[in-house]
């Protein structure tokens, strides 16, 4: 219910439209953008868990991904107010892959679904997951021997681990 309310308020405030943040300060603009992406991901997570339709859709937004250096914002301010942009972008991409897979997988329940349809759904998703992994920035890539990053930031290390756990969960979900 609360996820639905968050999504509804996002729509009321038209956070999904970049143009509505044009008159905001650089911090507010990036904050609104990242908040929409977070609300989208949480909406997807909740709707999947509860088996209900999501409220926010990728097709409705023209927002860019989270930016590590938002226009007009000094670097120190970006670092102080926002977490790693690439990490959040990677999570958004995973959510988008899972969402696309869920939509296509739902077609497999049709009475006229053919055995070959499973491969037609699973294979593209697995390819997208491999592409996702291949294009991760260096600081987000999982090291040889599955090593955690050498970082003093516990929140970053934790989120790094969560990201790769999520990647494996999505892949596992595709293959079940």
């Amino acid at each position, binding site marked *: 219910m*609360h996820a639905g309310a*968050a999504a509804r308020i996002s729509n009321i405030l038209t956070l999904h439209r970049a143009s509505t943040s044009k008159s905001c300060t650089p911090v507010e603009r990036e*904050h*609104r953008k*990242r908040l929409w992406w977070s609300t989208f991901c949480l909406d997807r997570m909740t709707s999947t868990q509860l088996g209900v339709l999501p409220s926010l859709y990728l097709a409705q937004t023209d927002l860019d991904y989270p930016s590590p250096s938002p226009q007009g914002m000094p670097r120190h301010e970006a670092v102080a*107010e926002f*977490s790693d942009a690439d990490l959040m972008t990677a999570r958004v991409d995973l959510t988008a892959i899972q969402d696309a897979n869920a939509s296509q997988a739902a077609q497999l329940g049709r009475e006229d679904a053919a055995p070959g349809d499973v491969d037609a759904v699973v294979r593209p998703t697995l390819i997208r997951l491999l592409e996702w992994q291949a294009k991760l920035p260096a600081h987000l890539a999982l090291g040889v021997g599955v090593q955690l990053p050498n970082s003093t930031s516990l929140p970053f290390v*934790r*989120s790094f681990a969560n990201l790769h756990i999520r990647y494996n969960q999505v892949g596992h979900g595709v293959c079940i």
Partner: protein
Amino acid sequence: MCLVDQFLTYVGHDWHWFCLRTFRERLEATYKVSGAPESRDRVWLCKLLVVFAIGKAFNGEIGDIEISTEGYSPPEQQDVGVTVAAPTESQPGKQFFEQALQLLKVPYEEVQVEHIEVLNLVVRYPQVVKRTCH
């Protein structure tokens, strides 16, 4: 601060919940500045309580700190009443969460970005409890 650090460590960077430095500054004002607007800001206090709840869900040892919002106290008294209760919860952070829900009232005619922040956090708490307590 410990519960906030717990929150930031375990889930704080998974998604964008709020602006990090701004949150810290408001947190400090709430406790250190007498008469700070934060101590009477319902939405802010709701957000803070849910952060405490989620932080505590990852660390169930600390007793509750109750934030009082009943009326306005004279400047010589604290605007935010703080009492510490013994840990009695079956779900870590439940009392913080319930206090937050009591404060949560979304005026749909005058919604703000901060309402979305609070609602996203409210969504997250039960998910965290489900994972850490089962």
